[in-house]
């Protein structure tokens, strides 16, 4: 199938920038340490905040740093540049589905990022802070959550990218998307720290599915709609899947509309 080939090719393409990827891993790790100490200070003032203990908070830290790469929290897609220059017209006339193609490509990129960028921060964090990794069942559950997160991440960025078809300058959308992503994904602070209504809202936005949910799965604390344990885990998956479906569907509609716009208005 061509999509498998696209994914493979994307992985190889990104593999050429190994040094760049390791560079990014270094920065991710450093920031992991910085945030860890900050959270430790906060947890010393408020132990068991949001149901986490200190070890959870620090693990959360390094987990989220590790996920920055695969989920591409800081946004952006090569597609945006192609739309801006008009090259995307070529893509739309190909007999391959635009969204499918870019999804496959993005999965390849994410896979490479998982391999090269996620390892260092997570492993370093676990080692230095003497944290115990969870059992194999949890790792498996975590893998599923990460996969779903990658879908949601793609969904968000694809929708943002397609907006460029209608807006002349996408930088406003990108900036907005970046702010929302950083704030609501749990990257700044675990969403459990958010008080009251803000916390509730944040928990239900798509960005929570990107980092907060997989991290919670890893910590064994996944819970949604008041459910805990295995039911909570499934509810969390459901939450991620919900947003994945919604965003991909929105992306689909935008793709169709874009193609129509191109045909009618000639790009």
């Amino acid at each position, binding site marked *: 199938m061509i999509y498998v080939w696209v994914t493979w090719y994307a992985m190889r393409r990104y593999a050429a920038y190994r040094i760049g990827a390791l560079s990014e891993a*270094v*920065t991710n790790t450093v*920031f992991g340490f910085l945030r860890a100490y900050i959270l430790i200070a*906060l947890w010393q*003032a408020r132990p068991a905040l949001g149901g986490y203990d200190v070890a959870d908070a620090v693990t959360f830290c390094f987990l989220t740093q590790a996920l920055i790469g695969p989920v591409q929290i800081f946004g952006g897609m090569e597609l945006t540049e192609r739309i801006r220059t008009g090259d995307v017209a070529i893509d739309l006339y190909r007999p391959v589905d635009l969204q499918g193609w870019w999804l496959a490509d993005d999965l390849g990129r994410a896979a490479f990022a998982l391999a090269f960028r996620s390892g260092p921060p997570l492993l370093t964090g676990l080692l230095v802070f003497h944290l115990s990794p969870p059992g194999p069942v949890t790792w498996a559950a975590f893998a599923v959550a990460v996969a779903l997160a990658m879908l949601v991440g793609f969904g968000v960025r694809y929708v943002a990218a397609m907006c460029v078809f209608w807006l002349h300058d996408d*930088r406003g959308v990108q*900036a907005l998307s970046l702010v929302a992503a950083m704030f609501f994904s749990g990257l700044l602070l675990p969403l459990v720290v958010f008080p009251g209504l803000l916390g509730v809202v944040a928990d239900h936005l798509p960005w929570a599915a990107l980092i907060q949910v997989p991290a919670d799965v890893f910590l064994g604390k996944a819970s949604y709609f008041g459910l805990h344990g295995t039911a909570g885990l499934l509810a969390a998956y459901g939450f991620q899947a919900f947003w994945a479906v919604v965003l991909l569907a929105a992306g689909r509609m935008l793709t169709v509309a874009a193609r129509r716009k191109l045909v009618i208005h000639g790009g």
Partner: protein
Amino acid sequence: MYGLLAWTWLRAAAQYPVSMVLLAVGAAVVTGLDLAAIALMFARAPRIAGFTAPEVMFLYGTSGLSFALADVFLGTADRLGQHVRQGTLDAMLVRPVSPLIQIATEDFSPRRLGKLIPTLAVLIAVIPRLDVSWTPLRALLVPVMIGAGFAIFSALWVLTAAVQFVIIDGHQATKAVTYGGGFLTQYPLGIFGRDFVRGLTFVIPLAFVNWEPSLYVFGRADPLGLPTPVRFASPVVAALLCGIAALAWRSGLRHYRSTGS
């Protein structure tokens, strides 16, 4: 020369006024996120690591302002690796201006200035609320620390650019020093563990951006137990670091000019 070039870039950017304003606002908001994080943390606890909210806001304001100023003037310097890779550094070497200035003024736009807004605003708002017995010396230390911090961050930007002469793809890693440095100085360094703070005092002197002087302003004891004069050492440290940065840049450029791309 810097001003002339920056002005020309600004004028070019001014042709898209809406975009310019949006970008500036966007930059301000992103910078403000860190502030939001601090605010959220203090919504949960009145004191963190023994520091009150106004004290941490003060640290955020001073560090943030120094960093934003350095970012305005030298923020694009770390694009050096990109230019080496694409061969565009050669075109700059043909012109009668230092390539550092050419790269630093690249794409100068109001977006850079947007970053100053939240930090300046916070500083102005928080200083009256600080529980500090103000003396002329303490009051003087505030602009001094901002100036020295600006110089230290500027030197770090230049150093991280110079490194890319040798490690061309190292750009992302240098962000750990520049953006990492800007981030960690928003918080009381005491939370980072003894060894780390020692490293930040003697190796990468980020402790002198705002931590050491602030200890004097707050009237607090130094966790490391360093003697009092250290509180005032920021300008000296800044000058030293700038010297090192200048040397590093020049030797990096010399290296590039003898080995090509």
